[in-house]
């Protein structure tokens, strides 16, 4: 399977935060022949180690496996499921959407009464998510309980479709697109030690990245993401965050992080000299694992590269195939150039091994 096929396959798997198993299993099957060591930590992060040739910094590549979704909280006597949202989802995007419930993927639909039965005022605003239920076709509570349990996670059920001008619509592009890029990167060979971290529970507060980065203790980290894209109607030009098709987006700052200037400049130089299109993310909202990883240990030089995805955090998002391919090209080049740039002091790091030494003194392990 090439990277694009792998991406499409990844978007058919369910991995709501805390239940990333199916995604992890598939990723493991794809990378196991290309890496030197594989471990799953106690939180469920998949950490792959790829030994380098002893040059440059220790690099962590991060992509999160989890997606936003729902969690069953109650089963009504009519056999309908009440739910909470996991990660940032607004109620407007929920009505009428197909879902899969639990690890067996029980099909369901988030239903609401049709227009004929609604009061006038019900038609004007969004329905509160507390009033929505998932219908799994059960006739009563008993029958529903045979198929699902309270605590089951619920994922959107939409298969990927290629359409239009090189576009792909699929669920969970945030961050399966990062996972697909990372899988592709792990198939290459590099001069520096690379730790590919497929992390859990990003959508509910950057949790997996905390323990993954503590285990790895990297010097440099690249966060591979799918990010907001607002080249859609009703958005003023100055509020557009990124544009679909204009190349991978680089973060300068968001609510979680101000990225390392030297590393950002290096990436921009690499993009320019290799004629790879790129863009800056023009808003400072949202957060990524970069924020968590940067303050790990004695500090990590971080940058975030992302494929712009329209309609992010809804059942279906849209991306451009060229952005995906350019993100792979750009991040590959970054991995190639980093050892030399590091040795030349371009990332102005005066005591790069301090974190690792301290970690070992405190009983940490050398490799995963």
């Amino acid at each position, binding site marked *: 399977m090439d990277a694009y096929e792998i991406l499409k396959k990844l978007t058919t798997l369910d991995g709501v935060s805390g239940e990333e198993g199916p995604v992890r299993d598939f990723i493991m099957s794809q990378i196991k022949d290309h890496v030197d060591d594989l471990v799953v930590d106690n939180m469920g992060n998949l950490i792959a180690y790829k030994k380098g040739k002893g040059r440059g910094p220790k690099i962590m590549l991060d992509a999160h496996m989890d997606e936003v979704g729902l969690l069953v909280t109650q089963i009504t006597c009519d056999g309908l499921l009440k739910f909470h949202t996991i990660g940032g989802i607004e109620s407007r995007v929920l009505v009428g959407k197909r879902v899969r419930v639990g690890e067996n993927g029980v099909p369901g639909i988030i239903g609401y009464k049709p227009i004929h039965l609604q009061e006038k005022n019900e038609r004007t605003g969004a329905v509160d998510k507390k009033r929505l239920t998932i219908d799994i076709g059960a006739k009563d509570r008993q029958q529903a309980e045979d198929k699902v349990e309270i605590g089951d996670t619920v994922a959107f059920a939409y298969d990927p479709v290629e359409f239009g001008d090189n576009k792909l619509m699929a669920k969970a592009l945030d961050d399966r697109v990062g996972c697909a890029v990372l899988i592709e990167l792990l198939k290459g060979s590099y001069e520096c030690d690379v730790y590919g971290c497929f992390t859990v529970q990003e959508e509910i507060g950057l949790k997996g990245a905390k323990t993954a980065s503590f285990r790895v203790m990297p010097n440099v980290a690249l966060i591979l993401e799918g990010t907001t894209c607002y080249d859609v109607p009703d958005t003023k030009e100055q509020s557009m965050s990124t544009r679909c098709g204009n190349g991978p987006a680089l973060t300068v700052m968001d609510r979680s992080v*101000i990225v390392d200037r030297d590393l950002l400049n290096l990436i921009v130089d690499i993009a320019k000299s290799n004629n790879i299109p790129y863009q800056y993310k023009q808003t400072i909202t949202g957060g990524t694992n970069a924020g968590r990883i940067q303050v790990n240990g004695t500090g990590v030089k971080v940058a975030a590269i992302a494929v712009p995805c329209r309609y992010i955090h809804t059942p279906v998002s849209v991306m451009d195939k060229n952005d995906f391919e350019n993100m792979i090209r750009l991040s590959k080049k970054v991995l190639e150039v980093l050892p030399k740039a590091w040795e030349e002091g371009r990332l102005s790091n005066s005591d790069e091994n301090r974190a690792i030494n301290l970690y070992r003194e405190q009983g940490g392990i050398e490799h995963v």
Partner: protein
Amino acid sequence: MFELIKSLTQTYGPSGNEKKVAEKIKNLLKGKVDETRTDAMGNLICVKKGSGKKIMFAAHMDEIGIIVTYIDENGFLRFGNVGGLPQLIIMGQRVRFENGTVGVIWYEENIDNMKNATLEKMYIDIGASSREEAEKMVKVGDMGIFVGETVLQNGKIISKALDDRLGCAILVETALRNVETDNEIYYVFTTQEEVGLRGAKTAAFGIVPDMALALDVCDTGDTPNCKPMSVKMGKGPTVKIKDRSVISHPEVKDRLIRAAEKANIPYQLEVSLYGGTDAGSIHITAGGIPSGGISIPTRFIHDASEMADMNDVENAVRLLCEFIKG
């Protein structure tokens, strides 16, 4: 001391871009400390070696500012905040970018109620007449700081960025006074405090001190109709009891009070309901680090004209020197 504060407050250093401030401090302390290093977050760590307790002092180098998010076709800049910006008082302010470019913050004038004047409705005019012209001066992602002269009047200092170049100046001055002690002193100048106490976290992890103090500014309760608070400008540096990020460790707090009383230094107890300091990050690092803080009572924090009393600054240096002797 005033000249030191003036030089530090006028240096460019919004969060994530503290290099110039670090460079200046490094030069000031050259030859005065035993070791100087910089970590991956850009924290400047200056060590005075000793065989006794490891004591960490933290003051943050970064200041609040703005970040350019978009440049329109007429050369106006749209921006977001770096750190906490009170939206109503930034209108009409000047900002300056690292390369010296100056701009004026203004707002879309069709706003009917100024409460709706959010940052999205504001822009920066740098006098450029087109996007091309503007892009020669600034680019998306560049950060600007507020312009505010540093003046001394009636023993009060008025300036931009007293938060927290005052803390930096106090640490520099304390290091220069070179108090005799067995303790190992870490003068740490941290980064990215204004965006979430980030630098102090990695600095503390790299040191794991026996105790730590954050040197910062705190609000006062002595201006017309302000929120009630017992701290007053000019009545001495504060011994922090708590702020929103930390509850001071009792032993650290007591050691500060003992030091102040022994040397007859005026001090006030600080209970801050708003705002956090680097101590908030430090005290929960590694296995936990007893932490507290000394603050300079400062009016109009996060405005381009903050105000503090020079006597409080001098007394904070004296208090630190006493604290070091322990």
